[in-house]
């Protein structure tokens, strides 16, 4: 790509993004570059992204903020002996996934999915890592605190946005992000509808088929 001399905006963007200690939004970049128009900055950022797309360093967008990072395919060269990445307990990884796929979510909701009480420490660890944050309270009786993921979470796991979460569309389509109660009722309604149709109760829904098998 662009082998010609890059324009001044491009050079300034490149320098700013290289020097910044944090990912920067288009607005922040525009502001830093002395009030350029957002549209111009956006265009230049995309051009820069394309320029770097085949290089050892990539320009990526994470939750509407941009930063440079090393190309994923070079991980084998760069992986460091001492791992800088926090090792999470399985409990913590599950809780993180539940927060990410269901956010915002209360502790009770997390527990109802996991089926076990979630130790206070688990949420603390995730908050300390900067991956989840308090996101207010749910306006239901008890006003429970709810949790959501952070910009740092997107950064760390290389997600442009929550829509990038692996398999989230499939999970949603399969109803696997709906609460058990909803799924349960939906199945019952289906079964009732089927019965009303005069058909046999669909056997993959109820337990009848299995119960039947086991009796046999």
């Amino acid at each position, binding site marked *: 790509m662009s082998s010609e001399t890059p324009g001044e905006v491009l050079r300034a963007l490149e320098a700013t993004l290289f020097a910044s200690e944090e990912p920067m939004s288009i607005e922040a970049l525009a502001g830093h570059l002395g009030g350029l128009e957002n549209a111009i900055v956006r265009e230049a950022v995309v051009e820069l992204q394309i320029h770097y797309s085949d290089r050892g360093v990539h320009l990526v967008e994470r939750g509407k903020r941009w930063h440079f990072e090393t190309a994923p395919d070079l991980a084998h060269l760069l992986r460091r002996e001492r791992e800088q990445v926090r090792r999470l307990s399985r409990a913590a990884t599950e809780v993180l996934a539940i927060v990410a*796929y269901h956010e915002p979510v209360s502790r009770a909701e997390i527990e109802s999915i996991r089926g076990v009480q979630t130790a206070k420490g688990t949420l603390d660890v995730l908050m300390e890592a900067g991956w989840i944050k308090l996101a207010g309270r749910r306006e239901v009786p008890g006003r429970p605190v709810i949790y959501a993921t952070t910009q740092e979470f997107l950064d760390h796991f290389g997600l442009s946005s929550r829509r990038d979460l692996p398999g989230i569309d499939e999970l949603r389509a399969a109803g696997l992000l709906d609460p058990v109660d909803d799924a349960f009722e939906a199945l019952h309604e289906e079964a009732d509808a089927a019965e009303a149709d005069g058909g046999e109760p669909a056997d993959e829904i109820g337990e009848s088929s299995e119960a039947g098998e086991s009796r046999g």
Partner: protein
Amino acid sequence: MSEDGLLFAAPQAEEGDEWEGVAAPAKPDDDSALYLELEGWEGPLDLLLDLARRQKVDLRQISILALVDQYLSFIDRAGALRLELAADYLVMAAWLAYLKSALLLPREEQEDPSPEDLALRLQLRLQRLGAMREAAARLMGRDRIGRDIFLRGCPEGLRIDRKTQWKCDNYALIQAYGQVKARTAPRIYHVFDRPVMTLESALDRVSAMLGVTLDWMDLRDFLPPHAEPRLRKSALASSFVAALELARLGRAEIAQEEIFGAMRLRRIVK
């Protein structure tokens, strides 16, 4: 159920292939102990989920009854190994034993909620947990910053120094000085004399006038007749207090027919 009590101490035996993943290798320094490590194990639902996986079928297709059987046999076996079972495992076991018996009972005798419903709920729950567990694994397996992907090692950092440009104009400056001067200039205060009737003179006046008659007199009759309004006001106040004072001394009585009505005064003859 809780995340506590996940460490099971038991003789290291029968790390059967069936339970791999449940039993982590024993700690080298204590080979008599079997640790069910936190890495893999958390609670009953986890165990059930793992059992469901082990059947290597879609959760929707598996038999809850078979699952329950396996779980219960795990609990039995753990008992045989003298595993110190966590309370929640046992609670779950009891619940599942109930569920199993209910599933085996003839349909008509079943109560509400039906064991089928309970089993369905369990299955739905396992499905959801399974989905999340898989999602977590995929998330953790992504290229992660600090492990696979790196940010700039020594960014120069951006700094914004704010500088203030102060604004003030000529007029504001001079006006400010004028105000300082005006504020701190010596000031002359005029205190005006006001016509007042003191309480003493009112007392004298009221008692003297009361001495003349035995009839009721309106308070306003005691005021100097042609006084200027400000003196009248002062005289009214003083006369009123004088009347109260005379009443207190038992030398006069006061009457008023209604609120804000005329106040009348009469001498008391001793």
